[in-house]
């Protein structure tokens, strides 16, 4: 994280020692309602779910696409195929169950996704990057990302706020948001599409009519100007820009003492 490495003044400043990752985790948790079903990967989305479960949403169900429901890791996993995330689950199943009988069935309220790039309609690229001369560098592809973006009721993107990562035109549209601004149903997709982009500078939403990305709140200490400067696409601005709430004492205690005492995610540089 920027605040950890002191390499940038553009991201959320450490306010009273609160890191941008903590603001993001709390912001993610706030978007989750009790009883909802969430498809989640590792990293900050997983921290956000864990925080929500331990505070206002004890009946949240977290599903990992590999076939793990409500795991309770006691050691830090290195990835989605790490046995550490299988620990103490309530159910072990399969892609067909998690992505089929839950996500495709229309039962997933929230899907969390990361991104190499996101455009102003919330379309996501996780497949490849293009250099200045058009040369292509492949990365991970979709895996379940396109499925989640196509089918979850609300999609939440957690990513680093950089101009090149929020471009006018994606190098590749892996996972659809509002595509070219059309209604989701018109595109033939289920779910309501992208809901929030949570970055280390701000929280973005989408205009209900045009489906264009819109600034909702700036993290404490981050100026609207620097957000615009670090966004590659034109960003809708509200009349008044709110300030993202800081996590409270109890949330910070849970994040730091219970969920991620080693700082594996909260100290992390994330893409």
């Amino acid at each position, binding site marked *: 994280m920027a605040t950890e490495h002191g390499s940038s003044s553009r991201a959320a400043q450490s306010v009273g020692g609160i890191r941008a990752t903590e603001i993001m985790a709390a912001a993610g948790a706030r978007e989750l309602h009790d009883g909802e079903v969430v498809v989640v990967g590792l990293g900050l989305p997983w921290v956000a779910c864990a925080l929500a479960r331990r505070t206002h949403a004890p009946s949240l169900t977290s599903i990992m696409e590999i076939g793990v429901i409500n795991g309770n890791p006691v050691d830090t996993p290195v990835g989605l*195929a*790490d*046995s550490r995330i299988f620990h103490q689950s309530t159910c072990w199943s399969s892609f067909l169950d998690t*992505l089929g009988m839950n996500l495709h069935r229309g039962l997933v309220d929230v899907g969390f996704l990361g991104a190499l790039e996101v455009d102003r309609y919330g379309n996501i690229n996780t*497949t490849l990057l293009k250099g200045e001369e058009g040369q292509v560098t492949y990365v991970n592809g979709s895996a379940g990302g*396109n499925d989640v973006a196509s089918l979850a009721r609300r999609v939440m993107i957690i990513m680093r706020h950089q101009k090149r990562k929020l471009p006018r035109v994606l190098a590749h549209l892996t996972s659809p948001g509002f595509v070219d601004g059309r209604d989701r149903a018109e595109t033939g997709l289920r779910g309501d599409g992208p809901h929030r982009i949570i970055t280390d500078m701000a929280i973005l939403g989408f205009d209900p009519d045009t489906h264009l990305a819109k600034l909702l709140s700036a993290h404490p200490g981050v100026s609207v100007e620097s957000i615009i400067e670090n966004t590659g696409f034109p960003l809708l601005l509200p009349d008044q820009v709110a300030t993202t709430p800081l996590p409270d004492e109890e949330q910070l205690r849970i994040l730091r003492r219970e969920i991620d005492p080693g700082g594996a995610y909260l100290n992390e540089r994330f893409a």
Partner: protein
Amino acid sequence: MADKVRTAAQVVGSIPDGSHIALGGFAIARNVNTVVHELIRQRKKDLTLSQCVMGMDTDLLVGAGLVSRLIVGGGSLDRFGLVNCVNRARESGGVIAIDATSLSISFAYLAGALGISFIPIKSMIGSEILARLEAGEAAERFQRMDCPFTGEPYLLLRAIQPDVALVHVQRADREGNCQIDGPRWENEEQAKAAHRVVVIAEELVATDVIRQRPERTIIPGHRVEAVIHQPFGAHPTAVYGCYDYDAAHLTEYVRHTKRSGGIEEYLERYILNSSDYDDYLHKSGGLKHLDTLKARPGLGY
């Protein structure tokens, strides 16, 4: 009762060049490396591979130049890095990649397993993934259709029925009844879709052990053609309940694959000069090292 226990060399000897092989690994878990090594040693050619999430198994086969076509959802070595050999082959055009999604591959395997030649799905619509698929080499595998009952638009996927499926499991008996501990990703549908199923088992048990917990039999014996018994057979990837991933080895692997020419060194050092998987395990640190990876009771890793 048929005794289906075979060596990897016997099994690979029966797989023709040009086969479509489905791999049961996921990123750094339960990779079918025992058979992958042998495929490389026997220098098979022109393979098609399919898998939801590629890991080291697919990366090795592509890196060794055995693969013409990939039908995949995605791929990664989790925090150890990317599937660099695969990505380099994509970039150079050395492999035709039919890039889909985890769910669409699962659905296509399910259709294959059920013996229905097509299945509808809502994923991929509106994405460049589909645009590329419909414009690409495998365009004939995709078709748009509105549901005749609801009018809802769907994409129809053609079923996948691989020639051979390889699955690494925790235990099997000599007839091929297999049990998998932990999540099963696409393994059940993938194996049941295939014409031939080969399992690599950490542990070979008596059929009576299988009969004690029949609800855990994910692939029944009559679907299985051969059982390869290979402890630590997925190393350096993890097998839940048996051993953890080998972080040092995976790091070394990615260090090799990051630079051009590195994979050849890795193949030379660990695979081509090994007589079999036990020999590879010996070169990778041997029993003493493997012992440090063994799962702790109650944790599974």
